[in-house]
């Protein structure tokens, strides 16, 4: 599951732009992921310039296993 460290987020929307299923929403100072739609592809985790997003399932995260 994608986890968000909201207190780190700058709300830039970089993750939204790459999300293939449009499941991330970024407002002026809020970010949320719709876990029902999310496919755990982790692309948002890779692109975040400040590591706000992470994958909690180690089997799915190439970062965690790297």
């Amino acid at each position: 599951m994608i986890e968000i460290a909201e207190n780190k987020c700058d709300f830039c929307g970089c993750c939204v732009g790459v999300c293939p299923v449009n499941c991330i929403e970024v407002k002026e100072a809020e970010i949320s992921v719709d876990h029902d739609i999310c496919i755990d592809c982790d692309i948002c985790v890779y692109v975040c310039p400040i590591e706000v997003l992470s994958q909690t399932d180690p089997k799915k995260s190439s970062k965690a296993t790297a």
Partner: protein
Amino acid sequence: MWKEQKEFDCIVVGGGPAGSTFARIAALGGLSVLLLEKDRDIGMPVRCGEAISDAGIRLFVDPDPRWLASTIDRIRLIAPDETEIEFDLLEKGYILDRRIFDYDLAQYAAQEGAQIVTKAYVDGLVIEDDKVVGVKGTHIGERFEKRAKIVVGADGVESRVGRWAGLKTVIKLKDMECGIQKTVTGIECQDNIFDFYLARRWAPGGYLWVFPKGKNKANIGVAISGYYAKAGKAAHKFLDEFLAWKYPNASVLTTVVGGIPVDKTVKEMVNDGIMLIGDAAHTCNPLTGGGITPGMRSGLLAAETAVKALHNGGPTKKNLQAYEKSWHKIGGKNHERFYRIKDTIFRYTDDDLIKIARGLAAVPEKNRSLMKLFSVAVRKKPSLIFDVARVFAGV
């Protein structure tokens, strides 16, 4: 007044340079325009290196001295082995103060009659019979729904408006540059020189920039390709390491984060009742990441089409496609050339970059130019030499 008005000719989602340019030209053409910005301020936060060429800005507005933090006439490239290569630019440029610039662009739109609303967050489209007929969202805790003949997605890298309308705006990992920038003060830098640091350790698949803003101030930022970000080292670490090495005493005034779509323009920029402009349509230059001029150009061309369509025939996909045609006619071919050049050189290793630097260093300074630089850079792939010759002619 916007609260009482139920319907507009155009609703623009996003108040950056593309959205404000569209709003100004469309209002000037007699259309009723509502521009909705989700943030508290137009022009803030500034997610941008703020560089623009003199010729680029003059296509749309006369530069106001208040916008110009510094004037740039020289470029310095720093190769992986720290060799520095400098040369004069044929065309001068500026580092803008976009807080003021974006504000003024929105004001120009308002002066022509466009209505501008901040803190207006759009979270969906109104769709009837498979056609976009409006937007819905929240304005300071209150729901709103407004109808429009044309909805304009100027919502930047997120480009959700386009997606809601069924247009394909998702950016592939390798075509997303992950950026972070700090505006710092208390550093020594020359006010007329752009610095570009090129090496895997500074910015894999991108570059690190030092853009002076005058008075010992500069925008120092890094953008790395998503392709390399996947390896696990995030952009902020590259920037922090660079600052600790090169400017350990810098004080940070602002930190901003952002994604830069370095992609081909979206295949379909319009559909019935919808147009996409700026980063939302991936108009930013895929090689340099410069997005202000192409964003404003797309806003201008889209607005000209919108005015014609609404005065004659309506906002059908067929009528709005005139915008796509004019975009491709004016800048589209070069955009694709820039993309091809980028797609080759973003994979270059440090050894490749050192060879390019040596090749350019061998050229007498007065003969160096961006055209020369990229001609040297694509020697490994001769099919790109024609692309370089076309896009850098006279630059």
